[in-house]
């Protein structure tokens, strides 16, 4: 299959390329940018006039809900949703049921994902057995089965001795460990930021030190072990400050934030909207602004969707009882565009955070447009307006804080490995 993508604004954040030209794809690779290779006769021409052609998005956290949570979403629906969001590579956290703590489970997931359309799937293995924070998993075996990194997902690692040893063990194989910094005791029973809204509504609170205490512990252990650690889902200004200093000191760390933390704050929970019940909690405006600052100055390496489709029964509950999480893989791009518009950030710089930067976290040569590279591409209309509604979302999870609101920017085509895995229906 040979495809010519014609006349789009081609942006490759990694190389700084940003100009209107054609992209040529043959089989699974990009074979030409600007200039067609000799004797190139496309089977298909995609008219990208007025559209942006960028590397396929790389999302560091997409819950596919299989195995175990098929009542929330299925591999098939969420793979399709991810493609509809322009995502061509994704990492899925191990918080399935059972968790991804055995090679067989990982192999099965990879096998099934490979045989359906949609992004390349990179499972993150469980760092400890059953995510209990007690016994290490067979990390070397899991890596062979296809795990790209290891994490506790949102399960706590209470025992700091196990944490230290898991970092040492991972370091022995030079494996990457992803940790969401949250002290289990300080966060106990909490569901909301310890701020003005929790004070008003009487919601059990999670103070900022729940993040900073855990973060400080992790940073000290990284200093001790030299392990490669990725810090997931920062939520606070103090947390961003700690990471900034640690990076300045040269620690081998990277970090990400969820897209919703770039826009929303505790104020969005003031009407008990269960779709704004997230982990970590949405914090204050000052925290959100610090996250934006951290993204602008490079402290934060990547933005992920932290996609968590949840069924209606688990969401239509009082705030604190509702299952946390928000659907988001289809909103990642429009919300990044929104952030770029609001902060007057050049589009290529904004796209870095969802393309080659997260690819670097994964250690992948993805998220780029270059001749000879894989044909993973996202073609989107930066101006197209649409309303977030259950029917507009391909994900089975309709739990978005943005339901009823307008987005600007919509994916038109997603190419994965040279295949046109998604095209939007004509509007």
């Amino acid at each position: 299959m040979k495809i010519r993508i014609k006349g789009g604004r081609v942006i490759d954040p990694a190389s700084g390329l940003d100009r209107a030209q054609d992209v040529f794809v043959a089989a699974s690779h990009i074979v030409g940018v600007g200039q067609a290779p000799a004797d190139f006769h496309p089977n298909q021409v995609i008219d990208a006039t007025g559209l942006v052609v960028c590397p396929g998005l790389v999302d560091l956290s997409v819950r596919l809900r299989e195995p175990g949570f098929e009542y929330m979403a299925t591999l098939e629906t969420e793979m399709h949703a991810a493609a509809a969001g322009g995502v061509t590579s994704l990492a899925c956290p191990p918080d399935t049921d059972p968790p991804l703590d055995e090679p067989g489970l990982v192999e099965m997931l990879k096998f099934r994902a490979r045989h359906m359309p949609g992004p390349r799937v990179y499972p993150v293995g469980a760092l400890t057995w059953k995510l209990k924070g007690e016994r290490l998993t067979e990390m070397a075996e899991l890596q062979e089965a296809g795990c790209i990194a290891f994490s506790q997902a949102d399960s706590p690692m209470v025992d700091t001795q196990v944490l230290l040893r898991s970092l040492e063990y991972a370091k022995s194989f030079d494996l990457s460990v992803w940790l969401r910094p949250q002290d289990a005791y300080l966060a106990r029973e909490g569901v909301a930021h310890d701020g003005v809204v929790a004070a008003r509504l009487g919601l059990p609170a999670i103070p900022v030190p729940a993040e900073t205490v855990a973060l400080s512990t992790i940073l000290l252990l990284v200093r001790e072990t030299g392990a490669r650690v990725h810090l997931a889902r920062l939520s606070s200004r103090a947390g961003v400050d700690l990471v900034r200093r640690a990076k300045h000191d040269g620690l081998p760390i990277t970090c990400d934030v969820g897209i919703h933390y770039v826009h929303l704050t505790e104020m969005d929970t003031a009407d008990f909207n269960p779709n704004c019940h997230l982990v970590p909690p949405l914090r204050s405006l000052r925290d959100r602004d610090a996250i934006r600052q951290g993204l602008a100055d490079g402290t934060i390496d990547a933005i992920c969707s932290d996609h968590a489709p949840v069924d209606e029964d688990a969401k239509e509950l009082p705030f604190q009882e509702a299952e946390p999480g928000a659907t988001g893989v289809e909103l990642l791009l429009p919300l990044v565009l929104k952030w770029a518009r609001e902060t007057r950030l050049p589009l290529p710089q904004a796209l870095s955070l969802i393309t080659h930067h997260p690819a670097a976290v994964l250690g992948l040569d993805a998220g780029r447009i270059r001749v000879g590279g894989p044909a993973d591409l996202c073609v989107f209309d930066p101006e197209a307006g649409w309303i977030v509604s259950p029917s507009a979302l391909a994900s089975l999870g309709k739990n978005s804080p943005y339901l009823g609101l307008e987005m600007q920017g919509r994916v038109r085509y997603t190419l994965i490995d040279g295949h046109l895995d998604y095209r939007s229906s004509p509007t």
Partner: protein
Amino acid sequence: MTVNPQLSADGRLKHLLTLDGLPARILNQILDTAGSFISINDRDVKKVPLLRGKAIFNVFFENSTRTRTTFEIAAKRLSADVVNLNIGASSTSKGETLLDTVANLSAMQADMFVVRHASAGAAHLIARHVAPHIHVINAGDGRCSHPTQGLLDMFTLRHYKGDFHNLTVAVVGDVLHSRVARSQIHALTTLGCPEVRVVGPKTLLPRDVESMGVHVFHKMEDGLRGVDAVLMLRLQNERMQGSRLPSAGEYYKNWGLTPDKLRHAKPDAIVMHPGPMNRGVEIDSAVADGMQSVILSQVTFGIAVRMAVMSMLAGGQP
């Protein structure tokens, strides 16, 4: 935040979910209406036909005999038919969701739900999902809100002090876990009380509580100095010993309202408590039964206030 879910398009009270954001106009209207019901409660025949034929369901997901009883009395004095349901925690363990339970009860031709639930926002959730003709009264949701208690406290204050505009009021105790305290604070600030204080150890006060418009005191003597009213809060048994407090004894010594501590307030200050009281923990018997205590008046006024709310919701404006 979206539009106020408690008010109808023409600005009338549709549900009573929280006092947070309810305009002073509505609060005063409830208090005035309650005033007109006080005399009914002193008559031999304590009944008016305002809600004849209306079905009021007391839906209690969290047990409470006292609050449920006062709502029941209020509904019966308005001639409504009352159904009491103690759902407890068991219904959810049977697999029925909160909204299924509500849908089932709606199908039984209810006109009004009086809801108590252990989680903040439960009444809001129910109000969002009931049929348009059904009214919801929040009888306590988690730590969030207990609006009729807040209103009856305002009624009591107004009864004894006349007006809110010159008052200094102290709310004392476990503000963190108290829906009563939150409702009191919202009502007091809305009604124009110029100084609202909260008094208690840092472990029992929410972070950022000042954002609600209150002054924070940790020492009782300072917090009570010159106040016109002391609003005591109940300390739950399970909170008396643990990571927030070392013992009931130390709590009593520092924050228990004794005649000695009360002397720091104005000589004519009144003492209130939402009940049930822990004598010898948050309040000394000499104060609870003393001249300045208006605790039993609160209970009496509570019925009139609940009648006022129910009649305004389901009976149209009286």
